[in-house]
């Protein structure tokens, strides 16, 4: 079976599906180019790659509340936010920012999300049922 379901906890509600991109490092969305969704932070593992319209599997957030919210906002205006975010370690600023721009967010996936999701996998998030469904990429 290349498709599997896992339970999670809903933080910001929504139902979305898309291709996964994985960041084991925390992120500050102020350090993304809103025009493209490309990470521009120096030394970030995702530097040069776009998180726009993907399902982002993210360790955690960082940076002050003002800049994080502004970063999310600028990306949302350009339509370049991730479709949904699966968080490893939740923190308040990241939560606030996601609520403001209505990006679905979940945490507490029953199995470590970094173990079960890789770049390019197809991931569905449904916060009503508090489940994520992962379809492994055929090429991987």
């Amino acid at each position, binding site marked *: 079976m290349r498709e599997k379901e896992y339970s999670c906890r809903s933080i910001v509600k929504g139902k979305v599906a898309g291709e996964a991109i994985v960041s084991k490092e925390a992120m500050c969305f102020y350090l993304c180019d809103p025009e493209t969704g490309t990470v521009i932070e120096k030394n970030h593992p995702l530097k040069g790659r776009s998180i726009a319209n993907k399902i982002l599997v993210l360790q955690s957030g960082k940076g002050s*509340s003002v800049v994080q919210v502004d970063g999310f906002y600028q990306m949302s205006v350009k339509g370049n936010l991730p479709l949904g975010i699966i968080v490893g370690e939740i923190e308040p600023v990241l*939560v606030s920012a*996601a609520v403001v721009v209505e990006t679905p967010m979940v945490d507490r996936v029953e199995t470590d999300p970094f173990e079960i999701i890789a770049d390019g996998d197809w991931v569905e998030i449904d916060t009503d049922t508090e489940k994520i469904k992962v379809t492994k990429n055929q090429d991987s």
Partner: protein
Amino acid sequence: MRLTDNEKQMLDGTHGEGVQKAMELLVALGKSFDAEKLIPVSRAHVALSGQEGDTYWCQLLVDGGAHCKVIPSTNPAWDVEGLSKVYDVTKEEKELGERTIDVYRRIGARLSFCCTPELAGNVPSFGEHVAFSESSATPYVNAVLGARSNRESSCSALASAVTGVTPLYGYHIDENRAGTMLVEVEHQPDEAYDWGILGYYIGKFVGNHVPVISFRDLHRRPSPEELLYLGAEMATSGCVGMYHVLGITPEAVSREVAFQGKTPQEILLVTKKDIARQEEELSEKGGKINLVMLGCPHYSYEQLRELSLLIKNRRVHRDVAFWVLTSFDAIELARRSGDLEVIENAGCRLVPDTCIDEPCWKSFEGGLGVTDSPKCMYYRDRRGQPFVLRRLSECIDAAEKGEV
């Protein structure tokens, strides 16, 4: 999280979309901190920034029909009407400034535009549960006033103002207010400036601890401004939301009480040398200056008086702009009490409603400034203006000479 029927209605949209959005934010925050419920707040302070994202949130709530139940005081953005006549700002910057004022007025905020409401205007009492954003205000209301607030963002503080509640976690709970780190300080700082340097130094070591600061020799009670600077700078170099000063702050009448009977997990010793080194490390080297900027956090009326005593019969150099950021009511007090005339005669100007970190100051960027605030230095540096750090009396000397 357990919600009351009324809170459930706020969440399901019965009270309108704006209230629903605000409630979604608070419930999401409560969940992420495992809060068991929401509790009422009696005061709020919104650290609006005038940035797009922040103004958007307020607009979203107010256009969704939300109105503040708890009237929040507001942080400064910038004095759009006054400063746009004096300095270059783009049309977009001016429009955003005006839109910020408009949305906060419509949602029913108190347009105080001052970052030190805890000194005058919105002062919580001991034990009061509040939602205060602004990194310099939160430690003051917790530590000095003994009120209870988490380190809110402007978004979450506005959500609390609109709903009247906040999730029960963090500094709202007794045990999380206990000191966990002992900071022993050799000497009592002289004036607010020195308390700021001390705070900046301590903040670097605090991490997630609640510091209990113990002075070996405290010969007088620190002023509100001195304690404000201490907390403001601890929250600049670190993320301190709560601290104690032994024998001074209300939840630290004794060591036993401050630590709630527990043993400190860490001890930090601070000597005079450490502070002298910190002061030297922070400041840029001297040179010709184009700006003296005081009032980060906003100068109180008492500080304006001090300024007027020091600047009397002196003259600011023609190549230097001297701005003091303060509140509209402190300016009015200074006018009535005779300080304003003295200050303005020296060539120094007071401005209300304005923060150092705003686009109206960009014409000074590229030049060197002088300030008495490490926090000002830290944020202005990101916008391309380095600052020399000096105490108030030396800032005035620099203003007169045009260099430092």
